[in-house]
């Protein structure tokens, strides 16, 4: 092996690195390495002049490999590999030594920081010494997409992708698409009817020739990688043929089973056979298997008897559908924080204490009370209603640390809707402060306070309980410094938004990360806000963070455009850093075959053979092999041993 000519480029990152790491010393130390032919420091290596200087230095000094000591490889690995390629050397001979996130930003002691930066840089120089030039593997792209979650985010993403000429499968867990937005009455700040805005989009996505809609279906397993995913979906039986169902509603009249209606947030009941909403898409009834007496004509069979369209079929079975797609958008939405966690707010056990979504259903013309605001306990019009904001939000000690973002606005909306329904009623709002950033949002809140005569009280509620037929709300008005006691007829809690259960499940299935609050993690908080860390998987809507409808629609559009850009390429390049067998060392023991999670290794003629299309380069095989006969390219065992040595030098 001829001696490498490595160039080491030490970035100051302004003062981000230089303040706590002696960059000149790092460069000097690296210059002393056997394989290093050139070193250079610069204040911003990623700037245009910085990058140019890297390219120039490679050419001028006949460098064959590059180490840039700078920020995390997640940020600029691609930048500098592209530069290496521009300078005429192989991009896989360029590696990043992370001396910012893993060093300068976390160690204030300059001497110790410098020492560690030198160790990190030296270990990468040693690794690069044995890096082999290689070419990315070209793989074909499956030009189809999948959107998981049929709320407004999923619908928008599916429509945008389909309109670009790409086929989309939209998977929804519930019996209807529409998600949370379909449960809303009106939307802020324009007070237009939520369903009137959403329904046309639902119909459009249902009728779109390039959208395949799978409702009552759940994603079970996802394999493959960007450009070529294989998704297994379980389509649960609805026991009603949507093409035959005439929506005559005869079946619900005869169904003897009554269960709480989850689509109405348990404010009403439904039958075992039901339609979630009048606007449901697909427009068909669904038979809830868990509630039904037995799907057996001998046990009951009443619905089947009355169905003139002969749409009911007890013999329907769960179906597993396999779809091949190139990209996935995750739009699995939010749930509300569980009231049970809030004992001071009644813990979900005090009557007429509702959450925000339940109040939406009370206001909705298609809701539990046909659009009349009535208390659930006695169906009387409530005359004093207390709205409480930040319930579970902004409380790092006990609940969620973050702000749920939309509650200030929807509480103002609720107060206004309430006053519209009950003009002589009194509305009180407990708030910490009002966050109304958004077009027309502040004006909306001001109108609620002034025109609608809503009493805003700055402070928190300490307790509420039932007392003489009313709900006693004890709180503080911190502006007047007085304790407040209100006898309310109804209380509405603006509970924190939390990632939906479906979001938590799908994150596990897709192996995409979640942030400290449980929402789906974006690849970069500023520059890649709609991408997950895993290539080809994109994020949209409240599954990523609390957000309102316009933001959700915008993010869905952004995710869709990423999908379209990805799928407009005929081939993708895949990392060539995959396993390679040293045949002379392999004894054909087969331990790597068992260790491979992708079944990418097989034995052929007594030697292990890697299927390059399946290997993801995880390295489980190399850690298992007793004879070091299998290695991941450019992360070989020899390289790691040399890196260990460098770390301890």
């Amino acid at each position, binding site marked *: 092996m001829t001696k490498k000519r490595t160039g080491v480029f030490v970035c100051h990152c302004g003062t981000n690195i230089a303040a706590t790491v002696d960059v000149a010393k790092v460069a000097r130390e690296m210059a002393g390495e056997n394989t290093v032919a050139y070193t250079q420091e610069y204040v911003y290596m990623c700037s245009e002049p910085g990058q140019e200087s890297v390219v120039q230095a490679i050419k001028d000094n006949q460098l064959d490999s590059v180490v840039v000591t700078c920020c995390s490889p997640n940020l600029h690995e691609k930048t500098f590999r592209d530069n290496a390629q521009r300078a005429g050397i192989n991009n896989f001979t360029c590696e990043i030594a992370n001396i910012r*996130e893993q060093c300068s930003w976390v160690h204030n002691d300059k001497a110790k920081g410098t020492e560690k930066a030198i160790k990190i840089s030296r270990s990468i120089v040693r690794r690069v010494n044995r890096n082999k030039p290689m070419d990315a593997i070209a793989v074909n792209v499956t030009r189809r997409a999948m959107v998981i979650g049929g709320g407004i985010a999923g619908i928008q993403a599916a429509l945008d992708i389909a309109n670009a000429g790409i086929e989309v499968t939209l998977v929804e867990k519930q019996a209807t698409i529409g998600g949370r937005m379909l449960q809303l009455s009106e939307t802020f700040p324009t007070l237009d009817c939520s369903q009137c805005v959403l329904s046309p989009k639902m119909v459009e996505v249902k009728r779109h020739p390039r959208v395949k809609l799978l409702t009552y279906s759940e994603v079970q397993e996802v394999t493959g990688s960007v450009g070529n995913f294989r998704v297994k979906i379980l389509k649960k039986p609805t026991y009603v043929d949507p093409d035959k169902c005439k929506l005559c509603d005869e079946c619900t009249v005869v169904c003897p089973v009554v269960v709480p209606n989850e689509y109405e947030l348990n404010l009403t009941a439904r039958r075992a056979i039901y339609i979630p909403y009048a606007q449901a898409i697909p427009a068909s009834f669904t038979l809830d298997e868990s509630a039904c007496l037995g799907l057996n004509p001998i046990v009951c069979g009443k619905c089947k008897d009355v169905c003139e369209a002969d749409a009911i079929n007890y013999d329907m079975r769960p179906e597993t559908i396999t779809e091949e797609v190139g990209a996935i958008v995750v739009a699995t939405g939010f749930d509300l924080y569980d009231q049970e966690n809030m004992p001071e707010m009644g813990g979900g056990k005090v009557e007429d204490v509702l959450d925000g979504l339940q109040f939406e259903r009370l206001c909705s013309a298609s809701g539990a009370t046909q659009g009349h605001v009535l208390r659930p306990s006695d169906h009387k019009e409530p005359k004093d209603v207390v709205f409480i904001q930040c319930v579970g939000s902004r409380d790092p000690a006990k609940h969620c640390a973050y702000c749920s973002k939309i509650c200030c606005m929807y509480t103002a909306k609720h107060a206004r809707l309430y006053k519209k329904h009950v003009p002589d009623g009194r509305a009180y709002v407990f708030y910490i402060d009002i966050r109304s950033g958004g077009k027309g949002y502040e004006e909306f809140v001001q109108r609620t306070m002034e025109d609608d005569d809503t009493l805003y009280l700055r402070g928190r509620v300490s307790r509420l309980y039932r007392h003489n037929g009313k709900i006693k709300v004890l709180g503080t008005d911190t502006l007047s410094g007085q304790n407040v006691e209100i006898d309310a007829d109804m209380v509405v809690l603006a509970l924190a938004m939390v990632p939906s259960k479906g979001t938590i499940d799908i994150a596990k299935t897709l192996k995409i990360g979640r942030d400290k609050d449980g929402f789906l993690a974006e690849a970069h908080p500023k520059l890649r806000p709609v991408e997950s860390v895993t290539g080809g998987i994109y994020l949209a809507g409240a599954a990523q963070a609390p957000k309102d409808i316009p933001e959700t629609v915008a993010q869905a559009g952004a995710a869709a455009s990423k999908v379209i850009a990805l799928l407009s390429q005929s081939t993708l390049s895949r990392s060539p850093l995959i396993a390679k067998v040293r045949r002379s060392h392999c004894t054909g023991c087969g331990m790597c075959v068992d260790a491979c999670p992708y079944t990418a290794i097989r034995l052929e003629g007594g030697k292990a053979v890697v299927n390059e299309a399946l290997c993801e380069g*995880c390295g489980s095989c190399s850690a298992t092999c007793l004879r070091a006969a299998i290695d991941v390219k450019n992360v070989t065992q020899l390289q790691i041993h040399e890196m260990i040595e460098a770390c301890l030098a």
Partner: protein
Amino acid sequence: MSEQQDYEPRIVAFLCKWCSSAGSDLAGVSRIQYPANATPITVPCTGAISPMYILSAFNKGADGVLVSGCHIGDCHYIEGNYLARRKMHLIMQLIEFIGVEPNRFRMSWVSAAEGAKFAQVITDFVDDLQPLGPQDKLKKAERV
């Protein structure tokens, strides 16, 4: 005693690329301070960490070795961290058998969202290594 306090344990930290390395990046972005004793080596997956690496690190003079990866069930490569857990359990028993304090080897699960946890893991490890003093049981004798 003062000698004990001056002693800075040398740690090699094997971090998986997807979770713990990203978690250490988050600790950096959040500017959470922790001791500079651990030098990170990023690998694709904890499943790729050969037991030989741990022994090699001790042999080359490490006072402590950390292996950190995705939480169980969250492995980017499906099951790499399960494989790692089994191997590391054996390594723990082996080094104890040889006579190395088992506290010198540690395995932790740090996700990409757990910057604070990463800093805490390093801080705790350094605190626990300090009273043990330098590791010389497996350290290769200096060549003359």
